[in-house]
């Protein structure tokens, strides 16, 4: 029987410049270093069985990244963060882990949207407000984006699930299914002159029985007494 655990971790500070591929390599090595026994794939060149959620762009920070690990030997999920954290680089902290049922949808399939906090320190607040009003009032928002090397035009509006402003900070919930929209694309759709800002992913969301939930259920968090992530409670 497969033993699988899901881990939530952060990507903050200098290490925000690591790529998605870098993260995978770091996790492989950190798990080995901390003695966690990971299951390997079969075949010619066996690799540790780790699967990540939706890639976070190089340069973006996150309070809520997820990783599913196939374990060769079980570990208490409550202890897993404490075991691997000393082996992770500064800014990457495993916050919580929980056992998951084999066969549940992968992170890539399950996550339907993410909440982003985008700081645009160089844009006047009024201009931000105007831009937001314009977008929220629009029925359609066609933009040209690149997907798998091809330029395509898509309507960004349906992917904007929520959009609010607090001073120079925007908070946006953007869909990743059926069509995904990235924070940089959202900004370009509002005003191409705004630049990329500083981007932080605060949450990822899945749909369970019609309700929006984080990939590690909050019930798990509180009942086990683990430290909840900032803001998790507010959105529950």
């Amino acid at each position, binding site marked *: 029987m497969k033993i699988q655990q899901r881990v939530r971790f952060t990507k903050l500070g200098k290490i925000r*410049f*690591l790529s998605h591929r870098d993260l995978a390599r770091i996790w492989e*090595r950190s798990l*080995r270093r901390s*003695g966690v026994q990971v299951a390997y794939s079969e075949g010619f060149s066996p690799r540790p069985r780790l699967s990540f959620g939706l890639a976070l762009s*190089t*340069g973006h920070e996150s309070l809520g990244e997820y990783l599913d690990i196939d374990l060769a030997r079980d570990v208490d999920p409550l202890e897993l963060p404490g075991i691997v954290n000393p082996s992770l*680089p500064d800014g990457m902290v495993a916050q919580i882990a929980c056992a998951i049922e084999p066969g549940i949808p992968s992170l890539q399939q399950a996550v339907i949207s993410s909440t982003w906090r985008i700081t645009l320190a160089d844009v006047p607040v009024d201009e931000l407000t105007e831009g937001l009003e314009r977008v929220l009032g629009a029925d359609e928002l066609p933009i040209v984006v690149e997907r798998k090397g091809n330029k395509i035009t898509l309507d960004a509006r349906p992917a904007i699930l929520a959009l609010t402003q607090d001073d120079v900070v925007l908070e946006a919930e953007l869909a990743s299914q059926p069509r995904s929209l990235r924070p940089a694309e959202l900004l370009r759709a509002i005003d191409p002159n705004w630049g990329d800002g500083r981007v932080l992913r605060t949450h990822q969301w899945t749909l369970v029985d019609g309700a929006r939930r984080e990939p590690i259920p909050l019930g798990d968090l509180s009942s086990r007494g683990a430290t909840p992530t900032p803001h998790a409670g507010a959105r529950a």
Partner: protein
Amino acid sequence: MVDVWARLEPHLASVQKPARYIGCELCAEVPPPSPHRVGWLLVYPDTYEIGLPNQGLQILYEILNERPDARAERTYAPWTDLEEVLRRENIPLFSVDTHRSADEFDVLAFNLSAELVYTNVLNCIDLAGVPVRSRERRAVHPLIGAGGHATYNPEPLADFLDFVVLGDGEEVVGEINAAVAAWISGGRTARIDVLRALAGIEGVYVPALYEPRYLPDGCLEVTAPIDAAAPAVVEKRTIADLGEWPYPKQQIVPLTEVVHDRLNVEVFRGCTRGCRFCQAGMITRPVRERPADQVREMVQQGIRRTGYDEVALTSLSTADFSGIEDVVMSAMDDSVGCGNVSVSLPSLRVDAFTVGVAAQIQKARRTGLTFAPEAGSWRMRQVINKLITEEDLYAAVDSAFSQGWRRVKLYFLVGLPTETDEDTLGIVELASRCLQLAKEKGHNGSVTVSVGGFVPKAFTPFQWFGMNTEEELRRKVNLLRDAARHAKGVQLKWHDTRASLVEGLMSRGDRRLGPVIEHVWRAGGTFQEWSEHFRLDLWEAAMEAHGLDMDWYCHRHRTEHEVLPWDHLSAGLHKDFLWQDWRDSLDELGLEDCRWTPCYDCGACTGYSIEHVVASAVPPAGGSQGTGQNLLWGTEVPVVLGARKSSQVPV
């Protein structure tokens, strides 16, 4: 302390591969800055991906950071896009460890592994905000030093370096640190004071304390000391026992992609196979093996500390390590506790025994094996003293294909002394014969031939040889391309022959090339080892502007009594030994490996009262061992391999 991170960060999103500038790697601890510690910035003058794995730099980093009176950080050459940002925003070169500004360190120590990085050295000094010419620096500026294989002829960089280290750095770095510490605590008096102190340390060369004199024909008359503190000849440093230096203990684990991304454990230093083209083999003598138990321990601890799943046992020819099979097997032993560890031997000897060891290691994933016969004919291999028989090669390749490898890569040099077209074409013949053998046995494989132009280096028997012109090298490559077209299944790759020319210029150049390097650098010629940035036109223009002749430096045979630009430096090797070896080479006369046969008194041991540290008194099993003889375990190695013919200097 000036931390440049806050100024740097906003720009990182717009440069390629920003992860190479963030540091944050798991590695040895860097102590905080303190007035009681000499601050070293170790600089690798190429990109992070190439420089990070450099073991020499990592060893010094750890040794310095363990000392109570030193601290060391690292930096690498910023890629051109970041350089643009640094210059535009007025941000200095910085350490990746703590993002401190480079000019806050007391010493900037460059690792020089290759000649094409010289313009990058100037660029890094300049980006650090330090005058590039050493005579323009004052007491407040960091000292600029260099070590590494290319420093055996540091003369082209003499104008830019304050001090140069010859040989193993493990011991001498502490002595340098002490001299610098004393100078700093004495109130940073005139720069000449610390330079004199450094010149008094064995293995340290201070170029400013010497002056070259030239003869009317342009040759050197002498490079002589002009200061009482400078010795007439600077000897290299050699650590007698590698076992006393089990470094790196905590190899740096990068967070982003680099070359050779694996645990590296150096199993021995030095090589006495005596390949005449190989500078590394000549300047690192004698052979010093690490005790097998220490190798095992370093592998086990290294795997545990780093989380790597691959370890490379490194040296110039790892299959020559005494008892290599045992060491390899125990390295892969599950008792390491990590499971799934793979071992690699980056430098395979050409014989079936070696392939056997490789087969034990690579249980899965047998994709490619690489061998370096270096020359296409037995005659040529005698000239270069790479005494591999065709049978060795065929046995190795046959063994590789029958044990499941599908690709064999063969390394060769063209432009070797006395080389004829027959020798050159022998390369493709060897390769097609390898392929044919494989086919006869029903194996399905491919053979790739990789060809480089030979560049003569200082302190080798070929230091007197005038290298082939670029046209000649290109002609030979074209010969091979034509021949390879008819040899189905043989793929040919070759290095840029123009880059070999500039490498040749720097390798045996003198101080008159300093202004040339500066000229090319000022004209924007950095990252010359990257083909997309290499600019032969800049080098040619600079040579012309300074009235210097590329031919004279690169393509001219030197005579026995010509004074060479590195004659005031010593790698231990007697010049008459090298000259005799050069004559022997022209006589197509092979020379035995002195690890297992009587000493030739080349000087590397005899001059420094040290000796080989080798666990086994007999050569390893299998194949011809590169001796040209068929040897079994324990048999004596004959000393003379060929008859002496009359010597002829090539024209």
